[in-house]
């Protein structure tokens, strides 16, 4: 029998009791939502359902839902990189998705996830920016990658990475040429090209409970009970391409190893998922 906790009434105020509640569960090696410690929530991936975007995807990891829409537009290149396109990720954690977030400018967490995605795109050379150049020093593509969280139930990082990757794979760029004679831009909407992606990262997030219990894919409540997460990003060869743990309980080596192991398996699973939707 599985116990299902559904927080449809919204915010649950955590107190010392819920900490004990968790401890009792973890003692038995099971989490209150019925998962094992290292078990992930089910995931649904859907691509290309937003016709106004150049590429889009919807990812649900358990209740956590992220929609990524990529809008490709043309702009003048940055003066310091005249031959390179621009990719701008942005994560929106609006008050719509959880009572944790307040209206107004993006909160710290949204900024950190945005920068995380930006680092990931840059450090892995995910997109060849030279491919996004139409005419040197004149016209380049800019990809606005907007990730909107619709339902925040923990582990936004994994959902964001997956939805960003799926949406990027889904992007279709029309053919653009510059007509030299009349200096006008010509667009052929019928002739489209997909993006070439150099790598295909998948991230897996863990949290540590009570120094020794490592749980994968934390929910919002689990995030509140623990400090600091461990995110491991792997590529299709099973290598680690990004790792981040900003703090929290100290970790032993074998814990790290265990997480890496799980991350690689998870990586391969999601890779197949990408393959399925992109065909």
């Amino acid at each position, binding site marked *: 029998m599985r116990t*299902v906790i559904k927080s449809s009434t919204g915010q649950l105020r955590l107190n010392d009791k819920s900490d004990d509640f968790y401890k009792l569960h973890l003692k038995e090696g099971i989490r209150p939502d019925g998962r094992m410690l290292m078990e992930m929530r089910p995931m*649904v991936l859907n*691509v290309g359902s937003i016709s106004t975007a150049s590429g889009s995807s919807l990812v649900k990891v*358990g*209740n956590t839902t992220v929609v990524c829409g990529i809008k490709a537009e043309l702009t003048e290149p940055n003066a310091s990189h005249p031959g390179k396109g621009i990719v701008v990720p942005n994560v929106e954690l609006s008050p719509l998705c959880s009572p944790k977030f307040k209206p107004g400018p993006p909160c710290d967490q949204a900024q950190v996830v945005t920068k995380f995605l930006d680092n990931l795109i840059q450090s892995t050379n995910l997109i060849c920016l030279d491919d996004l150049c139409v005419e040197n020093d004149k016209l380049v593509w800019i990809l606005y990658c907007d990730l909107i969280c619709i339902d925040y139930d923990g582990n936004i990082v994994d959902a964001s990475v997956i939805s960003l990757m799926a949406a990027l794979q889904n992007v279709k760029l029309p053919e653009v040429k510059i007509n030299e004679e009349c200096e006008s831009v010509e667009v052929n909407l019928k002739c489209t090209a997909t993006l070439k992606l150099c790598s295909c990262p998948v991230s897996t997030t863990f949290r540590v409970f009570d120094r020794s219990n490592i749980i994968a894919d934390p929910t919002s409540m689990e995030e509140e009970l623990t400090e600091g997460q461990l995110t491991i990003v792997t590529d299709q060869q099973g290598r680690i391409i990004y790792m981040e743990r900003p703090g929290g309980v100290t970790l032993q080596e074998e814990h790290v*190893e265990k997480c890496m192991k799980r991350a*690689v*398996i998870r990586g*391969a699973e999601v890779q197949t998922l990408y393959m399925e939707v992109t065909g």
Partner: protein
Amino acid sequence: MPLREPTLSNLENNFIVNAVCDNRRYDGRRITDARDTQITLGLDYGCCTVSLGETKVMAQVAVEMERPKESRPSEGSLHIHVEMSTLASGNFDASKPGELGIEIQRILERSIILSRCLDLEELCIRVGERSWAVHLYIHVLCYDGNILDCASIAAITSLKHFRRPDITVEGKTVLVHSIEERNPLPLTMHHMPFCTTMAFFKDSKQLLVDPTRIEEKVMDGKLIISINNHKEVCCMQICGQVHISKPQILHSTDVAYLKSKELSEFVKNVLTDDLKYKQNGEKEQQVSLLCKRNLHVKENLMCNQHKKENLLVEIVNPITTTENFASELKKAPEWLTKHDSKTVSVGEGLINSWGKVGSSFFKSIKKPELPNLESNSEDENDSDEEIITLNQTS
């Protein structure tokens, strides 16, 4: 979260005022003495840290290309940003400059930008199209009174120290050379204005150079004079409840001039020394000190340095091998569910609140076939999703 500014008791207040009236100061300085000035230059061009006693300011110059203003198409621009870091004092708010920050910024702008000490025309690349914008960032690191004087020294030193990248203009394109390619160029400065702050006490009769934070708190008001080595006053401002007579202003100007002359010599020496160091290939941060009256005894003692020979480290190989996780993976189809051409899902465990999301969310909706109002519920897999189609005939 800004802390509260500590208050001064009447006793302390009277002590300082009385001492000043006797031509004495609580830190042993004379009335017209400034505190020790120390300039530290870094490896970066246009970066220096200046301390005036305990007050400490860092300045950094940076350039970027911009489109010149329409009103001055053949000029670059200089912008001064004053950052009152919480480091400097617990009651400073990092996000907004506050009254003090604005005052400092305004006076520096008047003394440096409006006195046209920087040649802005030289910064133009293509008239009306491209020019350099010089940004001068002043970071106040420690506040113990008289930030302005300290900031003005830092500003001038960093502007003097700065080198901008060389460029070549070919037709419409501008080529920027990196530092490795070509020697970067200094900015042209016509003169060096330095600010001197003088505090007034005792119905503006007693004058005091370089007030500390406590002295600033008890003074009646202050007179700020920015003057260059040609004895040209660039900016003057009186703040607080003071009424200063003409001879006093003239006297103050003389004091400021002497200080300014001394400082400009000092800054010049520091910069030529730095150049020598750089040519010799030494990387050490250079520290120069003006007026070695108060010895910094503790400083060297408190600075700990790692010795070079202790720096060898060993690279350890882990005993366990953690390769080939991927082999543990099962074959795909067993755990993967494909809903339609665009949607797949994986995993089991927690129940989704959306039920069969893959088929309901973002579902392409069938066109209604019957031309009247109807509701048609699709009972696939006992899910509760329903598609209601509406229509009306005209």
